[in-house]
């Protein structure tokens, strides 16, 4: 029982850190835009931060890190597939 509570508290503490990290990454995303620079690297960097946040939501908040087999991967695939295609579209318009 004590071990269960300890594990439970540890999971909650991890999720609190994940929340704080996502807040920080969101602020970085917002302020990157205030630099006023139209740059492919910045746009792709911002997209990468969004994909990392999406992974954190899937793995920690949706608890997919505890899932094995097929159901572990759909969120990751959902992030990677559109993420790659969006990156290609922005790359092609960067001149």
């Amino acid at each position: 029982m004590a071990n269960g509570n300890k594990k439970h508290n540890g999971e909650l503490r991890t999720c609190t850190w994940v929340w704080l990290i996502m807040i920080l990454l969101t602020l970085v995303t917002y302020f990157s835009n205030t630099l006023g620079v139209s740059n492919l690297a910045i746009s792709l960097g911002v997209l990468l931060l969004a994909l990392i946040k999406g992974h954190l939501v899937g793995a920690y908040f949706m608890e997919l890190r505890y899932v094995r087999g097929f159901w572990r991967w759909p969120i990751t695939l959902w992030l990677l597939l559109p993420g790659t295609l969006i990156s290609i579209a922005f790359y092609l318009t960067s001149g």
Partner: protein
Amino acid sequence: MEQSNRYPPGDLAIWIFILAELAIFGIAFVAYAFARMYNVELFNEYQQHLDRRSALANTLVLITSSYFVVRAVHAIREDNSRLCIRWLSAAMAMGALFLLIKGAEFAHHFALGINLSTNTFYMFYLFLAIFHFMHVIMAMIILAAIALKARRGGYSARDHRGVETGASYWHMVDLVWLILFPLVYVMH
């Protein structure tokens, strides 16, 4: 939460629904990016007209609401229905704040006569934003139904699949916004 489960938390049906929803949003995001290829200047110009501060506030609000839902799930796993209801209520309050901020943004656009046929950028922006807005409303209704059932003692540490099901849907709504925000408001 036990290690190495075969299925994600909550009802499997909601996960099939979540994947279908994500597929629709994913296609719309890619369509936005490729439509932008043919209208780069138009997209860059009208993107500047959007209220980025509101979008930032809404991103922080949704991330926080998702964290509150995580707390609600943990509370019911500890057999604490009252705490679970409090966290669910806090998450719904965050959802209401999101709707308020986004509603004000829509009101501003509509007052200027902007609609889906104004131009290609606004067509994508309004479609994505309104479609997501409707999902937030739906997710709030689901959380409210769960909170009501929890109030009647419908969930416990042994049986809380309903809470996990609603939580998974709420996180999906958050997940979609996490991509929508940089794509439509920031990347140019």
